[in-house]
């Protein structure tokens, strides 16, 4: 435990354990992973909260995210500046929401953010098209994309405004029980 203790103080670890879904061990492991991404940038000693942010390009190269079609959106949704620079705390946040223990509501809110490419608080057609292109690697013709998006909106839009609000999205999620297990990244 000797050298592990120097990364965080006990108070810091308590705070992490109280505010996220991780245990002390997982926090230390996450720190290890974060440190691994940029060994020369990230200090080993976090006891005095160093101000250190890693750019998006480094983070999306993690094996857990590397193949994810939404990797950039995930990282951007959790970064405070919206550009994808993550501090360690935001990094922990990201995996906390994506962990097994996070409740459905929290996951739904972040999933909505991830799919909301243009950050207008609605999933409009444009967002859905981008989502679809990422999911299918742009193999569908534009007409097909159009059709699928229209169908999606038609099916999920309850209030008839031709775009999906968070309420619509949550309503859909509540009927898709797999969401809890699929919106989950093991660290």
């Amino acid at each position: 435990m000797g050298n592990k203790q120097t990364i965080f103080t006990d108070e810091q670890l308590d705070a992490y354990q109280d505010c996220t879904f991780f245990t002390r061990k997982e926090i230390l492991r996450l720190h290890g992973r974060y440190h691994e991404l940029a060994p020369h940038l990230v200090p080993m000693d976090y006891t005095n909260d160093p101000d250190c942010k890693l750019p998006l390009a480094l983070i999306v190269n993690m094996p857990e995210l590397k193949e994810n079609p939404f990797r950039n959106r995930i990282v951007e949704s959790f970064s405070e500046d919206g550009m994808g620079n993550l501090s360690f705390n935001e990094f922990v946040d990201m995996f906390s929401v994506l962990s097994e223990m996070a409740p459905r509501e929290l996951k739904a809110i972040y999933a909505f953010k991830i799919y909301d490419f243009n950050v207008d608080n609605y999933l409009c057609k444009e967002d859905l098209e981008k989502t679809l292109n990422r999911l299918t690697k742009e193999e569908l013709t534009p007409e097909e994309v159009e059709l699928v998006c229209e169908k999606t909106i038609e099916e999920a839009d309850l209030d008839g405004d031709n775009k999906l609000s968070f309420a619509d999205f949550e309503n859909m999620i509540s009927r898709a029980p797999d969401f809890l297990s699929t919106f989950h990244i093991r660290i």
Partner: protein
Amino acid sequence: MTSYSNGGFFNHAYHDSETLEMDRRHSSKTHHTNPYASHDPASWGESSEFPGQTHGYDAVGRAPGGGWQGESWRGRESLPTRPDSTRQHDRNHSTFRTDRDSQYGRAPPYQLPSSVSGNMTMRWRRIAVRRMSMFPDADPAHVAFTEDAIKNEMENEEQDLVKELVAMSTRDRIRTIRDLLMSFEEKKHIRRQVEALKSSYKSRQFTRLADFSENVSLSVRRAGYTIKSTRQTLELWQGIMKEIGGKFGSSVLSYFVFLKWLLMFNIFSFLVNFGFITIPLLVHDPSPNIPQNVSFRGLELLSGAGYFTYTVMYYGGYSNETLEGLVEYNMQLAYFFTIAVYMVLCGIALIFSMASSFRQNYVVAESVSNSAWQLLCSWDFSVTNDKAVRQRRNNLSVQLKESLSEKAQRELPTRSEKLKHFGIHFGSWILSTGLTVGCGASIYYLCRYEQQRATDTENWSLSQEAETLLVPFVVSLMNLVIPLFYSLFNKFEHYSSQRTQIYALVVRNVFLRMVILAVLCYYWMNVVAEKFSCWESVVGQALYRLVIFDFLFLMLGSFFGEFLSNVIGTRLLLSLGIPEFDVARNVLELIYAQTLAWIGIYFSPLLPAIQILKLFLLFYLKKVSLTQNCQPPRRSGRAAQMQTIFIFLLFFPFFVGALSMVAYTAWTLNPSEQCGPFRGFNNTFSVVGVWMAELEEISSSQWAVWIYQNVIRSEIFYFLGTLIIIVIIYIFWHVTKGRQELIRLLRQQIINEGKDKSFLLEKLHDLQKSNLSRNPKQKKQKEHTKRHLDDRSSSSHSSSNAMVQALLARQQFEGEERRNAGGVPVPSDISTSSAVMQAMVARQRAEREQDDLYHMPDEYSSPDSALAQAFAARQRAKAQESDEDNGSSAVMQAMQARQRAEADRGLDTGDLPFPVSNVMIQVMQARQRAEEEDRIQWVPAPSQNTAPPGSSALIQAMLARREAQNEYDDGY
């Protein structure tokens, strides 16, 4: 402003006479869940949000949508989980009025954790949603929102949050903090504030005790985290699970999760049995009493007979003595109660996991819309393997294309096609049922044949022992081969959906296994029990053989099922392709294996040990077979629902079947005379009777005897219990039905709101167009209007500008309020429909007015005068900005303008073409009038202008805001 809000807030009439009970409850619940919230008398004046709320909820009660919300709240109140919300509400109300100057140090009268947390979730929701939509809001009414205002609001929210958190128990607090929609930094900040606040309370009283309890709770918490951490370290196969999930997705992973779960079950049952039955016996008498001529021959590992018969492996190896060591240990009671308690615990664990699984996965038991689901919910974030990701993408695009083309050319099947389908289904069901029945019959006759040959001698020859392997071999073979036939049938059948296809397959397999097990159990209980002298051990051996052979055939199955089809698919018949891992078949195999272990628990208490070994090896076997031979599933099925069904299957036919088999054995069958702990009894259960007879002599345990005689042995108890349970089920069933209805209605409500919104937006759009064309004219008239403002103000007819006026007035009012209140939260107008609606109503009226104008051009009315008036009001407001006391009058004037516009239009509304807006207007007017009257009674007019209308305009503006917020909260 300040005086208004106080007046409005501490106005008893509002609480006691005007509002509906539910509205009050609602309003108090959302905000003041603990008396600390009212700690500072000064803050009341500042908190302009509170009176706003009160009004807002009044409005909800009266507005057309109010009935709805009332409905939903009543629905909530009727929940059995929140029995004390009414009490709490009363407390809150008394707090409002009397505890104005209560300090931080004051302890809450009492705490109601359950309802507090219930309120919390509502609140968190609102905060979360508001945080989401605060910044990118493009509503033009919010241009006036400065950054300061938003910041102030957030700070205020935060303060409230911290106060509420302080009042919670540590556990609830941590859970709530974790669930907050905030970044870690913010959570940490809140946590620190909560802790600071808490320690400041504590420092005032009993410092030492508080310190001590704080330390204790901290160390308990840390110990809890350490245990959690250690448990995670000990958790099996984490890395492998991650790898499988990364390559094959969560549906295949669910098989391994299930396997691990069963393994835990068996480890538990092994520990219980070994600890309470075997260890005491071994401690007492470590050497098994094996006859001289019996030796270990090796075949026992397969057959379980011979040498093993005399060990503690089987029922026969246990004695019926009371072991005399340090304490007396009654083997009979230990055996009976260990098995009974284990079975009950298993049942409870299964019911709980089933219930939680149902709750999670069948929230609303409706099939989700398909393409929306595929697009937004089907992507598995845990997949990290590049090949798997590529394949998933391909599959998804193929599926989407398929569904598109299907939609394009979906045609109803003709009658002959329908008949053909029906015929095929019917035929395959007949065939599969026939196969199952045939299997059952052949196993029965095979058993009879074996029983005729078998003798009851103590030691079998090697060949005799080998003969016993025939039945388990045939049974396992059937279990392996028949499902393959079923899969074959399935290929010819055309089911409308993939799900029905899987269900059909699952049902047939379950039926097959049930029949086989039922036949075996019947044979054991009716034939074996009559014939053999130590029949329990014989049954135990048969089960042991079945378990072992099942394992061997599982290995064979993964060889044939996965390896061979991989070879065939890649070398011989390329059209077949690489096989997929069949989760359903594999899970059913596991369920069958577990059922064997459950049945065997009575006959062979150490069978779980074999089962542990089997599952452990199986995990690695399946993992290797999967990674070597299989490809990720092509269709992303509804894994979670399937898992629920599997747990249900494990419980319903299989566990319940095993339980009834064991219970039947224990209650009815004669235990064998010469071996086992229950020799000499009529049935196993009579051991309890004997024990009770012994206890009767001891006076201190009369209660146990009483319970035995009056509860366990009395029919009336079971009769009443069943009756009560049936009544409870009936009630819950109706509650569920009510909820379903509620969900349906709420969904309808959302749809209606959406329609209203789009309709009104359309109207707004039209209006803006027509407005643009008239604008230049209005500008010209502006000067003129201003001059004559005072003369006209009472009779002016605004036309198209009523809406603009309303917006301006509100905006201004909000700005003013913020200045006065010094940063009290003004909820950003996150809501959509109702705020828009209110604005729309004004506009509609304006439109009508326009029409009138065109018809009566002579009437003294300028379309722009209202606008001008509003401008003037705003100017005045600006002038008075420096003068805090008079600030409110400017607002009032602005409000007045709007109000007058509305009042004037009130006469025309009778024949409005749109029923929705018509009702809205009428309701609003009614409300307004009522409030006016109220105001006159309760609030002294504080300003230079005509105060009563002014104040009511203010109220109305607040109402609008609150309503908007409510609407948004309740929309979910």
